[in-house]
C-alpha cells in the first residue's frame, strides 16, 4: 500500500492530531511550548503549540483554549481519546520555552520557563510521563513529530537538527 505522507501543520495557539504515516509540525517556537502526546503502538499523536501558562490569567471571557497550557492539554486529551488512544500508553515530548530577549525586569521575561512548568504540571495531572524534552535556551525551534517512530525532530537556526 502506497500511502501519501502529508505534514499536518499546527499554528500558534493551536492543537492538531495526526496518525501515521503522516507527520505533524509546528514552526517558530520561541517562549511558546510545543507539546506532543502520543500512543506509539496506535501510531497516533497530538501536538499543541501553547503561548501562555495559565487560562486563569485570561482577560477575555471567550478565549481561544489552545492558547493556554492547561486548557490546550485538556482539549488535546479529549481529541486524542476520541481518536482511540489508550491512556496508559500515552507518553509526551516537549520543546520550546526559550527566552528570546534578555529583558531587564518584567513578567514576560520568564514566560518560557513558566510555560514549561505549567505544561509539566498539567501532564503530571494526567500521569503522562515526559520521555524527552528540549526546553529553555534562547533560540527558536521548529519541531516535527513522526507518530510512526515516536521521534521528535527539532530544528534550530544555530544548532541545526537534533532528534529526541
Amino acid at each position, binding site marked *: 500500500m502506497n500511502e501519501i505522507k502529508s505534514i499536518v501543520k499546527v499554528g500558534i495557539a493551536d492543537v492538531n492530531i495526526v496518525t501515521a504515516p503522516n507527520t505533524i509540525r509546528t514552526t517558530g517556537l520561541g517562549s*511558546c511550548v510545543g507539546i506532543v502526546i502520543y500512543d506509539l503502538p496506535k501510531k497516533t499523536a497530538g501536538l499543541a503549540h501553547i*503561548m*501562555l501558562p495559565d487560562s486563569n490569567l485570561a482577560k477575555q471571557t471567550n478565549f481561544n483554549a489552545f492558547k493556554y497550557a492547561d486548557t490546550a492539554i485538556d482539549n488535546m486529551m479529549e481529541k486524542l481519546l476520541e481518536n482511540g488512544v489508550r491512556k496508559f500508553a500515552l507518553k509526551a515530548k516537549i520543546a520550546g520555552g526559550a527566552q528570546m530577549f534578555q*529583558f531587564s525586569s518584567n513578567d514576560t521575561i520568564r514566560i518560557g520557563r513558566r510555560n514549561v512548568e505549567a505544561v509539566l504540571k498539567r501532564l503530571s495531572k494526567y500521569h503522562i510521563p515526559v520521555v524527552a524534552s528540549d526546553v529553555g535556551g534562547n533560540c527558536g*525551534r521548529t519541531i516535527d513529530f513522526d507518530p510512526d517512530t515516536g521521534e521528535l525532530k527539532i530544528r534550530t537556526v544555530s544548532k541545526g537538527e537534533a532528534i529526541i
Partner: protein
Amino acid sequence: MNYNHLSTIQLDALREIGNIGAGNAATSMSKLINEKIDMQVPNVSIIEFDEVMDMIGGAESLVVAILFQIQGEAPGMVYLLFTVDEAESLVKHITSNSKQRLFHEDGTCNDFAISALKETGNILAGSYLSALSDFTNLNMNTSIPHFSVDMAGAILSVGLLEISHATDYAIIIDTKINDANLKNGINGQFLFLPGPESFEKIFRALGINENE
C-alpha cells in the same frame, strides 16, 4: 475594546501614526547613511497571530530583529526587522567597512556589527517614537535595544504575548523604509504593536471618540 470594530477614522489615525513615526525614522536613517531613503505608505492590519508570522515570510523565516519595549502612557513594542543580507549591508554602510558580517566564520556573533546595528536601531526607533510622542502628546520611552537573529515566529511571539491575554488579534502598524538607491539593498520594516490598553489613550489623545 473590540479589535474588529475599529472605525475608518480610527484606522486612518493609526496609519497616520505609522506615517509620522516612520517618516521621522527615515529622515534619521537618511542622515545616518547619507543616502536617499524612501518609505512606503503604512499598512494597518488587524490580524490573527498566525497571520502576523505570514506578514514577514512565515514563522520559520530567518529575521534580524531589534526589539524595543515602549514604556510610559501608551505601552507597547516596536520591532525593527531586517533580513540578514539587509542587516549586513546596513552594517557595512554605517561602519564603512565592506568586510563586516553579522557572524564570524566559526558561527559566533560579530559583536561589533551587532552593536552597530543596535545603535542604529536605537536611533531609528527613538526618532519613530519621539515623533509619535510629540504627535499624541503621550509620554513614551523606549527600552534599551534587544537584539536577536532567529525564526520570525519565535521573535514575534514575544510581542504577541503581551497582548495575548486580552485578545486573539494583533493590530500591527507596519511601515517599510528602503534605500532609494536599491542596489545597496538596505530595507527595514517597522512593526509597531501598541498594547491593548494603549489604543484608547492614543485615540483620545488625537480627539477621536470611540464611537465615531
